[in-house]
């Protein structure tokens, strides 16, 4: 493929890298007072990338036309769909951060730069067509994420979160690399399509080891049980806007990457990884649900909730079909809206001095203090629990549908049963907000950006969202189909 054609396919990535470099220079010269302006500029850059990618997703681009750099990079509709979700999550993280970070005295010009570079890493991850691209994208994202977790230097919890994330993340990267080297050694190639051709005849013991190690490394990145231990601690310690970022965009990227490895590189050996994914899915759903019950801190609760949700997404992957991949993409889209909404609502809980409130008991009687906020948070919780008529129900429905169609009835049944456990703590929050004695601590005002984000995400997951489901489902189906095209 010509270099020029390759370069035009990576246009969003080029825009992101150039804007990161430009903002870095502006920040270096202008100092921290440019931080707010840089955030807005970063949002515009990401919105520009969104506009580049969106038409390609609608057109369902795939196959050989979407392959750049000798198969190392794939700008197909599947990656495009994931990129749109990632960009949405990143813009949200850029918009909600300045107020919070300025309050704790940590708003620096590097914040938007690091968010853009993390977004670039995720953008490369979901487009990976080669083990090398996978690793480079993942590390670019992870390194930026470690720094973001420790961004508030004055807060020891933030530093602890950053260190914990770094040490465990480096271990996971090492495991992933080990798996990749075994895979390369036993298949003789790093290209996903070439791997799938080589293993089509049968998986040798070494390649099997490689596959399992790679799954372990990626399971860490999506915080699937049993590699989830870091999640509650990191989510609790990191600054809340950064936690919102971690819970939305990188999850999408890592799940899409896992889908590429499983369906593209090892798509001819579905039985080899299905057991692992099924186990991780069920364990995540159950541990996420049980772990959340005793939590008193809302951030920790949302961390367990994200573990729980990853389990449902993996149910879609376990199906191993195009329908399963499409259901996974749909679930991710709804999940991003729910996560961003929940975290924005959490950021809006402030006491009269403007300090953030994070404890569930602070929510009590929120209905009488701020009825709109309480209503939005209630929608989020019902949607996360999968209760109709909210969109979270539909997301769970398509995932279970895909699992049942792939003859995984037992998995679907167990997942449905376990989702009932999860409903308990979501509804508990609604009960605290609507039926408990008002604690009267949530008095702080929030600005228009937070309200706008909250209202948008509530509208997306509200019954109104069903109006878009047929169009959206079609889009996801076409995107998932490009994953199964040979290029």
């Amino acid at each position: 493929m010509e270099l020029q054609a390759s370069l035009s396919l990576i246009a969003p990535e080029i825009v992101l890298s150039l804007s990161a470099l430009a903002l870095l220079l502006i920040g270096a010269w202008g100092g921290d007072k440019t931080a707010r302006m840089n955030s807005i500029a970063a949002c515009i850059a990401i919105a520009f990338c969104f506009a580049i990618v969106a038409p390609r997703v609608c057109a369902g681009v795939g196959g050989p036309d979407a392959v750049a750099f000798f198969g190392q990079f794939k700008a197909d509709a599947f990656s495009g769909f994931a990129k749109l979700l990632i960009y949405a999550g990143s813009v949200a993280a850029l918009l909600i951060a300045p107020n919070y970070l300025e309050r704790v005295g940590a708003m620096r010009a590097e914040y938007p730069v690091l968010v853009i570079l993390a977004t670039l890493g995720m953008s490369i991850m979901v487009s990976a067509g080669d083990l090398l691209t996978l690793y480079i994208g993942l590390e670019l994202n992870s390194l930026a994420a470690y720094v973001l977790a420790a961004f508030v230097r004055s807060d020891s919890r933030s530093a602890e979160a950053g260190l914990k994330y770094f040490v465990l993340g480096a271990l996971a990267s090492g495991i992933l690399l080990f798996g990749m080297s075994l895979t390369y050694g036993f298949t003789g190639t790093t290209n996903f399509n070439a791997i799938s051709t080589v293993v089509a005849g049968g998986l040798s013991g070494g390649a099997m080891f490689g596959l399992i190690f790679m799954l372990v490394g990626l399971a860490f990145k999506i915080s699937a049980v049993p590699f989830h231990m870091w999640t509650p601690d990191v989510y609790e310690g990191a600054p809340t806007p950064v936690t919102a970022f971690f819970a939305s965009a990188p999850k999408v990227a890592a799940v899409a990457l896992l889908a590429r490895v499983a369906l593209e590189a090892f798509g001819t050996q579905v039985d080899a990884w299905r057991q692992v994914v099924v186990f991780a899915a069920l364990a995540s759903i159950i541990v996420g649900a049980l772990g959340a019950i005793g939590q008193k801190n809302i951030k920790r609760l949302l961390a367990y909730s994200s573990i729980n949700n990853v389990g449902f997404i993996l149910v879609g992957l376990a199906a191993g079909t195009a329908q399963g991949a499409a259901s996974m993409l749909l679930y991710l889209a709804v999940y991003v809206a729910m996560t961003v909404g929940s975290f924005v609502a959490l950021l809006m809980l402030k006491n009269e001095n403007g300090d953030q409130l994070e404890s569930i008991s602070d929510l009590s009687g929120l209905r009488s203090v701020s009825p709109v906020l309480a209503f939005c948070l209630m929608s989020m919780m019902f949607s996360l629990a999968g209760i109709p008529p909210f969109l979270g129900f539909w997301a769970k429905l398509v995932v279970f549908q895909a699992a049942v169609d792939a003859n995984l009835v037992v998995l679907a049944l167990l997942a449905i049963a376990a989702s009932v456990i999860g409903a308990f703590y979501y509804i508990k929050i609604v009960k605290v907000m609507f039926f408990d004695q008002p604690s009267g601590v949530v008095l702080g005002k929030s600005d228009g950006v937070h309200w706008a984000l909250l209202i948008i995400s509530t509208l997306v997951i509200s019954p109104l969202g069903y109006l878009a489901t047929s169009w959206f489902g079609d889009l996801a189906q076409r995107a998932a189909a490009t994953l199964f095209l040979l290029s």
Partner: protein
Amino acid sequence: MIQTLAFYLFAAMVIASAALTILARNPVHSVMWLISSFFNAAGLMIIIGAEFIAMLLVIVYVGAVAVLFLFIVMMLNIDFAELRAGFMKNFPVGIAIALVLLAELVLGIGAYRAGALELGVPDGSAAPILGASNIENIGALMYGRYLFLFETAGLILLVAMIGAIVLTHREQRAPRGHQNIAKQIARQPEDAIVNTKPEVGKGVQL
């Protein structure tokens, strides 16, 4: 003949330097022996025709890693005598681990020699340019086929640099010995001196 001679010379020097690295009493000497072992390892690489790796050994290991070690050894006040005190106690454990690793190596190479491993066949996508040196080959691959990944790896290094600065750089405060002459001149006696007449047993209110 000369090649064999050079090999044994370099190999013996690598082993001797490595041994002296852990045996030297002075930590700075240890680092020097380490550098010597890197240089000799680079010589070994040249003998097998891997000039690029030889260069990397010198540039990266000697130029960066060893200098970093020297900085650490000289700047941190580590009590090496205390560190070494546990050496004899842990010696048997160390020997046991070394033997296990050796056994694994022998088994692995044995299995490979016996043909028990079905290693993949390279797909030829990165086939070398015949007749070119390996530096030329690696350069052609990095700036040709793997251009995108090479440039992105540069961005990763940029993130690492930004991260290090963000997490450790502190703004310099205004210099402490700053003299405000106008303020000194404007100072009046009544600003500085207070006359009090404390009563007995009441103490002084300042």
